[in-house]
């Protein structure tokens, strides 16, 4: 751009210069020649006066005269007879005169003879130069007609012309150089502003969106800078809006409880949120990896392939086994861009808790109906038998009624437990708050269950409670708790086993431990044993006459007393821990 400007300006200058040179040169030349011709004619005029007076005999006087005149005028002087013969020439020695051509045909001579004066410019064979001739006729003192001619070498003109040329060329050169220098300076100045704009644009392109141009008002560049700054400002604002939007979406994704996963049709994951990571226990980078590298669960792979293949949404329940047993509701949605499949979005909803609660409810209802039905069926059966005739037989009748009674009793205790539980859960039971001695309580409970303990041949050790601090609670309910725990321990410990009590205190809490050497509780059942009717080994538990509600009641009572209950177990036995407030 810059060089174009300079080149144009240079060309203009040169063109102008050429025109001026040509014109002035021409003018000068013409002027010189005309002036010179005029001047020469004047000189010829003076010379012819001298010649007219001094020459009597052409042949005799002309050579000397021309020599003198030539010397004085410093020009070539020639005298020509009316017939054209050269009588004298200041440049030619007298001896050589006869060798000269007849000059009659020379234009200036002819004009002089015909018109009274003549001039011409031509190349002289005689002196081998461009000459300017001026010729005038005259009459000698003897009355003879002759022509006087003065000639001027044009070499001086030529020299002057050459000098002029040189001056003009040098000045043209100088002008050109000056033009180049100044226009390049000017060009620099204007392109500098453009360069600044370009540099700023490059910066913004690289990402420094905050760059702005200083505005030099008034100039066109200033206008450009203003527009430019406006544009940059708008772009910056747009980017900020987009960033804020992205942040909002990120926050939403981040805070969601459901897991989100976005993948491309090849199975490469492009986006996940923290909930998804938690669900699959992923700690490293997930984005950019293949689905199979993240989880090998066949269900997940099949679902993914299904959605990609069919292009249809699908909802599936997935059973995860690692890292934990979980039920996950998965919703797959294909992503379409211009009608083509561009990826898949999957939403994972952890419904393990819901399923768990459903299972508990189902189990509970099933258990209650079973528990209630069994004794009722038996009672009905025996009543029927009695009505059918067994009443007649007093022995049988007595036996049957006893059976009916014991089952009615069992039913009563079952319903009693259920009611207790219900009351405990609803908080309608009033609990006393008294200081209770653990040792005394344990002693009492062991006495209550003495028969069962003896029958099983189990040893009970309560010595660990001898120094136990007193706890705060409702004595009746606490007794219920210990009875339940000890009863369980007895039920599930084989003959020869032992039950050991111990206590530990920490701060304002006291923890009682009831340890047995029984068959233990499987790990997967541990979290559920405090559920209503939950049985680890259904057959055995029923056989022993349990209601399945014991531990549930224990848990509720302890919680109402402001404490906690927990259990540890292995194949060698179980230990129940009850933590209560210190009295």
């Amino acid at each position, binding site marked *: 751009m810059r060089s174009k400007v300079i080149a144009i300006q240079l060309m203009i200058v040169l063109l102008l210069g050429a025109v001026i040179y040509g014109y002035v040169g021409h003018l000068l030349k013409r002027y010189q020649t005309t002036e010179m011709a005029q001047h020469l004619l004047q000189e010829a005029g003076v010379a012819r006066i001298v010649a007219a007076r001094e020459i009597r005999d052409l042949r005799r006087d002309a050579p000397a005269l021309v020599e003198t005149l030539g010397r004085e005028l410093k020009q070539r002087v020639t005298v020509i007879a009316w017939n054209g013969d050269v009588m004298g020439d200041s440049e030619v020695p007298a001896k050589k005169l006869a060798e000269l051509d007849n000059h009659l045909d020379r234009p200036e001579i002819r004009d002089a003879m015909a018109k009274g004066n003549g001039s011409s410019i031509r190349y002289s064979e005689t002196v081998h130069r461009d000459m300017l001739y001026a010729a005038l006729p005259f009459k000698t003192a003897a009355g003879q007609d002759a022509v006087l001619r003065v000639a001027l070498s044009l070499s001086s003109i030529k020299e002057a012309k050459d000098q002029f040329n040189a001056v003009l060329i040098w000045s043209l050169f100088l002008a050109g150089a000056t033009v180049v220098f100044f226009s390049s300076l000017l060009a620099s100045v204007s392109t500098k502003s453009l360069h600044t704009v370009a540099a700023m644009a490059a910066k913004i392109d690289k990402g420094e969106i905050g760059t702005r141009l200083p505005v030099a008002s008034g100039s066109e560049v200033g206008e450009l800078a203003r527009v430019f700054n406006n544009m940059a400002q708008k772009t910056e604002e747009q980017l900020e809006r987009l960033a804020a939007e992205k942040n909002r979406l990120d926050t939403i994704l981040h805070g969601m409880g459901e897991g989100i996963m976005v993948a491309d049709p090849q199975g490469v994951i492009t986006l996940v949120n923290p909930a998804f990571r938690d669900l699959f226990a992923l700690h490293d980078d997930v984005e950019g990896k*293949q689905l199979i590298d993240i989880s090998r669960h066949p269900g997940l792979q099949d679902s993914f392939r299904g959605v990609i293949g069919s292009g249809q949404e699908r909802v599936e329940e997935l059973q995860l*086994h*690692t890292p934990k047993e979980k039920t996950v509701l998965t919703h797959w949605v294909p992503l379409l861009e211009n009608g083509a499949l561009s990826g898949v979005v999957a939403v994972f909803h952890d419904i393990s808790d819901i399923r768990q609660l459903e299972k508990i409810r189902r189990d509970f209802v099933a258990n209650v109906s079973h528990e209630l039905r069994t004794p009722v069926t038996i009672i009905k059966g025996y009543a029927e038998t009695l009505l059918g005739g067994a009443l007649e037989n007093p022995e049988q009748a007595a036996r049957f009624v006893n059976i009916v009674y014991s089952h009615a009793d069992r039913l009563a205790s079952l319903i009693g437990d259920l009611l207790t539980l219900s009351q405990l859960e609803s908080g309608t039971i009033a609990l006393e708050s008294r200081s209770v001695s653990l040792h005394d309580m344990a002693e009492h409970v062991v006495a209550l269950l003495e028969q069962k303990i003896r029958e099983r041949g189990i040893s009970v050790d309560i010595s660990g409670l001898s120094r136990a601090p007193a706890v705060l609670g409702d004595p009746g309910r606490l007794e219920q708790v210990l009875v339940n725990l000890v009863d369980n321990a007895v039920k599930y410990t084989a003959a020869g086993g032992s039950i050991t009590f111990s206590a530990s205190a920490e701060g304002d809490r006291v923890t009682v431990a009831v340890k047995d050497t029984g068959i233990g*509780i*499987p790990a997967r059942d541990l979290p559920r044993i405090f559920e209503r009717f939950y049985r*680890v*080994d259904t057959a055995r538990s029923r056989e022993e006459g349990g209601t399945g509600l014991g531990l549930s009641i224990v848990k509720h009572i302890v919680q109402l007393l402001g404490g906690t209950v927990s259990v540890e177990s292995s*194949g060698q036995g179980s230990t129940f821990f009850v933590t209560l407030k210190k009295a």
Partner: protein
Amino acid sequence: MGKEHMSSQFHAELSELRLRLLEMGGKVELMIATSMKSVVERDSDLAGRTIALDAEINRMEVEIDQKCFHLLALRQPAARDLRFVTLAMKIVIDLERIGDQCVNIAREALALNLVPQLKPYIDLPRMGEAANRAVKLALDAFVSGDASTAHQICRDDRVVDELNDQLQRELLTFMMEDPATVERAMSITSISNFLERIADHATNIAEMVIFMVHGKDIRHATIADPG
């Protein structure tokens, strides 16, 4: 058919092989979980479904073997790729065997579920978890090319071995006390043995992953050996 086209096709074939191998691994992991669940939760339906999965495992073994042969014959891979393909062929065998053990466990579950439970299953689930973890870690190591979890896998294997011994002893006393428990006790013993074998297969896979990653063959040496 420029050289570049061939190499990208080769690359795609390797990726496909890896994918299929991992899918097979995922199915086998599922089988371990469901077979143990069918025992512990006494779910015969689940046992049946586990057994049905084995057909798919066997099919995948054949498919992957063929893929490997194809790759070796046509592409003649070298160095790391060669190790990968040959080890894929070996790992596939271990996976298929694990599948078979799971089927065996499921079959025992079917038998056990017809009779009352002998005793609460405490050690069996723990063994199942350890075996499952060992297989998972071995496959994870394969995925990540990171053999640093090999130690954990060996530990899990030892845990399973120890629990197996313990369980066998316990069941022996059961059987001696009460002959009526023999059949059930034998079933549980079998399950324990199957789990022990699954854990062994997991260590096999781990050893091969180490070889693939480090070029070091550590089979038949203990982890303690520095060489």
